């Protein structure tokens, strides 16, 4: 495996399967009374969060702690960054503190890639701008595999704001690697221009795609990034692209519903769909800790390549 995890596209099929298989074994750790392993004792993991995030940061923190690593949390608010420190200087500071891994969340696409050139430790991308969020894709694939048994030939439909979604891009790349067929469904205004180069299908009609889906993944409508008129009204978006009770009923009986969270209940997903037994939304959170443990173990658990 690579020393860094920056893009889901960097993972070969073998790498991805190794991470999923490792997570499968580590999932058992969460079920026992002592949920801790000594493996990363003496390693330091820095959570470097330039953008607000609760679940991803907590998830990485829990994962590192369960492996006995030391965790340093660094959030941009109230730090030297708000005093004008550059990313590079922050990186060098972390380097001097002996960070073995830096988990970075940044609003600029490509920030983790830059960071990887400046530090000796491993860099894990925890979401960069509208680019990628590889551990989210891994936990989604892990959740699908646990529910469906395998990913080969499975039809995954990703619905919503693909344009601003790092989750969608990472999922398309990873699921393609793992042999699933991905269909993106969104209004044309919420699809990136380059989408025809992605290894997936595109549709504008949710109702046509739903009956042929094994997995339906709803994306959050990112109100904080809606700085232009991407759709006429929330109500119209919800009617055409929201997963409500009627649409849910038209999905195959064993199909599952996913959402990376946080959800806007009533907007992209109806509350009763989100809470149904076929929704994996809560599992995804638990699986997030497990998959991040697997990633940290595989990056830091062995001999560290120089």
């Amino acid at each position, binding site marked *: *495996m690579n020393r860094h995890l920056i893009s889901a596209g960097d993972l070969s099929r073998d790498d991805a399967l*190794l991470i999923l*298989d*490792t997570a499968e*074994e*580590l999932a*058992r750790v969460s079920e*026992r009374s*002592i949920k*801790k*392993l*000594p*493996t990363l004792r003496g390693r330091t993991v820095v959570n470097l969060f330039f953008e607000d995030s609760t679940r991803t940061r907590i998830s990485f923190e829990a994962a590192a702690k369960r492996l006995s690593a030391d965790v340093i949390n660094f959030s941009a608010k109230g730090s030297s960054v708000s005093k004008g420190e550059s990313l590079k200087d922050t990186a060098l500071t972390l380097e001097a503190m002996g960070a073995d891994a830096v988990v970075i969340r940044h609003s600029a696409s490509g920030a983790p890639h830059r960071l990887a050139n400046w530090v000796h430790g491993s860099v894990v991308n925890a979401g960069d701008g509208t680019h990628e969020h590889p551990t989210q894709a891994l936990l989604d694939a892990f959740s699908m595999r646990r529910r469906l048994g395998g990913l080969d030939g499975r039809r995954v439909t990703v619905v919503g704001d693909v344009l601003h979604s790092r989750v969608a891009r990472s999922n398309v790349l990873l699921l393609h690697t793992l042999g699933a067929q991905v269909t993106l469904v969104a209004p044309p205004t919420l699809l990136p221009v380059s989408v025809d180069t992605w290894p997936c299908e595109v549709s504008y009609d949710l109702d046509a795609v739903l009956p042929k889906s094994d997995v339906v993944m709803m994306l959050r409508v990112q109100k904080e990034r809606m700085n232009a008129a991407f759709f006429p009204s929330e109500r119209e978006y919800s009617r055409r692209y929201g997963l409500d009770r009627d649409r849910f009923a038209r999905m195959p009986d064993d199909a599952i519903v996913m959402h990376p969270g946080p959800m806007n209940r009533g907007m992209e997903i109806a509350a009763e769909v989100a809470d149904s037994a076929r929704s994996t939304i809560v599992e995804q959170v638990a699986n997030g800790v497990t998959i991040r443990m697997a990633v940290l*173990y*595989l*990056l*830091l*658990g*062995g*001999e*560290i*390549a120089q």
Partner: protein
Amino acid sequence: MSESRAVLEGPDIHRALTRIAHEILERTKGADEVVLLGIPTRGATLARRLGDRIERFEGVKIPVGSIDITMYRDDLRLRPARPLGRTELPPDGIDGKTVVLVDDVLYSGRTVRAALDALNDLGRPTAVQLATLVDRGHRELPIRADYVGKNLPTAKSEKVKVYLQEIDGRDAVLLMKEGGR
């Protein structure tokens, strides 16, 4: 380049396991409250075979599981991260039981040390014993086996490889000279 010699063949392994199963029954007075935990991969297979034999001899079904020690190894940082094996505890757990750890080859004792640490995180057995198919010597820690299939004098430069029907398609223990694998 490498020359190998079979030190145990199928029937020898069969007899050794039969004897160990009897010894476990004898020492634990009927294998009451005994749990067999194999260390993956081949230790887990051997534990299942021992469990089958004990059931056949005394008609008692004893719990069999596996305990992966990868995350507890002391040499993790010497090699790239390795894939994990499976830890599978019997439903009743190991608290208050006599755990018999089962491994294929006992060498430095470091694997067993790691297994003891792993056990510590999984519960509190009354006693822990160790069964091994081959004891090849060269201990680096104060660890010994309670049940040994065969004591095999070896040189440190030699390698001992265990093949089992379920995994490798045949039963044998090979002793290999000089770095062959």
